[in-house]
């Protein structure tokens, strides 16, 4: 009984320290946050610019467009879509292409993110951060790309698993309307979806950790190692993932509250600017927090494998 409690405490401590160290590691490499934010901003601006031109032609000198300041007037929007339907179909194509490109660029950058954060844990010398960052980007690109493809497969498996489980659940409890989230088995379905999504996402993170730790190894060797690690340390890895996620959910909730209050204010230029700033701060935070996910999990992995190594040595 006592040892069980002590065990729980030890897990709690290891998770909390991973979380805190994760944050401080990201903070020590603030330029990574900048890179992450810049990546989002640049691609978003690319996608925004054609829209901006269309908005400007339809709404900039439109008396009725002031409706948008208080509510989303769909009638204006419907006419907008109809009027620009041809341009929008070209835009849609461009949207898909730019998103594809963005995903490739992110896969490229993620080598840099993971590599740089790993170095910090190993206390390696860092002379020119940028040079090293892009060095890692190039070095890990192919591996990261394969992981992304593998992740698509995992998401599909998770989706089928979810459908399978919900069919079973429905056959036990009978059909329920999807909007009645209060009914208990909709809650169960929702939880299943969340758990599966978390599991897949988390596996992706550890695949990347094992890739940077075991560079040069066969891809499926890395996959095997990752899942062996995840299966033996599922409690710790999942607990850390949930801790990270819960903190994120709380922060998103706080953001939504602030946004709600601000959105209720009179829509003058000043307040629109203020909302814009809050939104951008939120996006910067999300960039920071994704890196915290990465680095906390790196720290946890480091702690666990160090301990395993110690145990082996002691034996």
């Amino acid at each position: 009984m006592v040892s069980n409690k002590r065990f729980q405490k030890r897990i709690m401590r290891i998770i909390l320290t991973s979380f805190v160290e994760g944050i401080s590691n990201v903070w020590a490499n603030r330029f990574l946050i900048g890179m992450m934010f810049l990546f989002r901003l640049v691609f978003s601006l690319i996608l925004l610019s054609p829209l901006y031109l269309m908005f400007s032609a339809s709404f900039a000198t439109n008396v009725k467009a002031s409706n948008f300041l208080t509510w989303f007037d769909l009638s204006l929007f419907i006419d907008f879509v109809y009027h620009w339907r041809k341009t929008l179909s070209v835009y849609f194509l461009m949207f898909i292409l730019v998103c594809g490109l963005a995903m490739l660029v992110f896969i490229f950058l993620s080598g840099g993110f993971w590599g740089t954060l790993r170095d910090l844990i190993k206390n390696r010398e860092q002379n020119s951060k940028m040079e090293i960052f892009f060095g890692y980007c190039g070095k890990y690109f192919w591996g990261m790309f394969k992981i992304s493809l593998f992740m698509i497969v995992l998401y599909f498996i998770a989706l089928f698993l979810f459908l399978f489980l919900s069919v079973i659940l429905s056959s036990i409890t009978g059909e329920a309307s999807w909007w009645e989230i209060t009914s208990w088995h909709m809650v169960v379905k929702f939880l299943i979806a969340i758990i599966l999504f978390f599991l897949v996402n988390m596996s992706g993170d550890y695949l990347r950790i094992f890739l940077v730790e075991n560079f040069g190894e066969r891809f499926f060797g890395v996959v095997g190692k990752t899942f062996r690690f995840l299966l033996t340390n599922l409690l710790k890895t999942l607990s850390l993932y949930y801790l990270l996620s819960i903190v994120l959910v709380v922060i998103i909730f706080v953001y939504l509250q602030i946004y709600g209050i601000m959105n209720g204010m009179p829509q003058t230029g000043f307040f629109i600017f203020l909302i814009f700033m809050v939104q951008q701060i939120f996006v910067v935070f999300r960039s920071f927090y994704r890196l915290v996910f990465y680095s906390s999990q790196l720290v946890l992995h480091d702690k666990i494998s160090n301990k395993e190594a110690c145990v082996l040595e002691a034996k």
Partner: protein
Amino acid sequence: MQASFSKLLIVFFLLYSFSSFNICSSEEEHAPQIASYEIDVKLDTQEKKLGGKEILTFINTSHKSIDTLFLHLYPNAFQSNTTTLMKESDFSDRIKRRPKYRGFMKIEMVGISLGSDLTDKKIIDETIMKLPLPNSLPPRGKIKLEIGFEVELPRIFVRMGYYGEDFMISQWFPKMAVLGEDGNWNAHQYHFNGEFFANFGTYDVSITVPLEYVIGATGCLVKEYKNTDSTKTLVFRAEDVHDFAWAASPDYQLSKRVVDGIEVNFFYKPEHEKAMDRIMDDAEFALKYYNSCFGKYHYNHFTMVDTKIGLGGGAMEYPTLITIFPSRVPPENIRADALIVFHEIAHQWWYGMVASNEFEEAWLDEGFAVYSQRRALEERFGKRANLIDLWGIKLSDLDFTRLSYFLDLQSDPIVKNSWEFRNYLSYRANVYSKTSLILETLRNYLGEERMDEFLKEYFRRYKFKHPKTQDFIQVVGEFTGDNLIFVLEQLLFGTGVCDYEVASIESVPLENEDKRRRYRTRVEVRRLGEVVIPVDVLIELEDGGRIKHTWDGKERWHEIEIETDSKIRSAVVDPENKLALDINVNNNSLTAKSCDSVMMKLSTQCLFWLEIWMHWITCL
């Protein structure tokens, strides 16, 4: 005084309730009895078959003697993949591959009551049966036919058939086509686009089903008895109607309510128990609302049946009966069920009582029903988000209608045979959406009160009749004068669109001797669409002054030039949004200065959502 008055009321009420007991329609005016039916039918729930006999009484209301009768045998539309209906739908493959979608009607015998047997003389062409008569039928002459028939039911498909243990039985008996005054028959094949057309009459229908079955039908139940072979027979009577439909299920539950003296019955499936009250409320609302807007519902009974109607349909209207299959969307946020109930109940006025030809002028029913449904939705749920109010998305029925109008603006005019439309999208866009937008525009021009007077008059004049496009135009003319008739004709018979724009605005300072600064203000408005409608142009000045100007819209462009004390701030064409048909409201105005806060809000919001999107797509 008070007490004696209330006693009088009680006596009156008692008298009234006795007099209305078990009478199937009110005592007032009746429809012309042109085609009446006595039908005896048995449903074989195992074999999915109907077997029946009917006595059809028909009066020649034309000016000519006729020597051939035309009847509809609608179930034959399901007999193969090459029928008119199948070829026009996208389902011909389905029926080819899956025999259970096949259905047909067999005429076992047909003859004149107490007269010659015509069974061998009948000529059947798909869904039309021609019946040469031994002696011609003179004007005002009456004929009684006896017909024995059998219907093989398809699996539920385009409004009729079975699914599981349930049955939706419509267009199921040999039905007289409509004879025009000129002696020509209005008898078309059963087409995929378009619905039905028939004469009024009285229906006495006896339906025999297994004991466990519950039936919802047109008309009202006058008798029910058990038979010796573990079946029962239900006898229905429907007066002043032009069709008869029914649905049967072993697990129907019944909910009843009396609304404005109308007995409302809802036969619902147990799994829709939760939706039942809501749908009854919607029906109660619609009946009361339409009663007050259009004129009184003629019958003292109204039935809703909870049934699927198969591919190619959502819900359907029949005289005094509608089908509704509750949707699986959150009813507080998406009012799909309310829309369907409001639409189908509106058909009780625009189809049930004012019975236009749905083959050739479907817009007079469908467009009116869409317009009425919108009025009811607005009255019940407000103007802005009366259809969808979910996750910040607010969609009104008007938005939805405009959207579906945009799906095919210009392929066909509204007035056209239903089956000759380019495709279902064009049929829908014109017959349903554009028509309702015309009525919406008319409402905006006339004002709500005048519009109701117009609809009441149209209903009063054409109740139990079959008005045509010209009848509608004539009544509109009486209410609006000739100006709008010209507009109406462009909209009904043409494919042009309506689009006005403010092309440019400017204010130039004037050189003058006195010290007051004055400006020459110019506004150019343009008509981009083909449809000519007089429009208002509102000019707003920087000092708050407003100048209203009316343009007849006849030329392609028009310039307004005035001298003003201050510079122009904005100009708006159609400032009150009267033109529900305008296909681009975003070009209806111009401001002198650009509205920076709107642009800032739109672009910053978009940027934020794009950034969040970038976050999500990089989860992989």
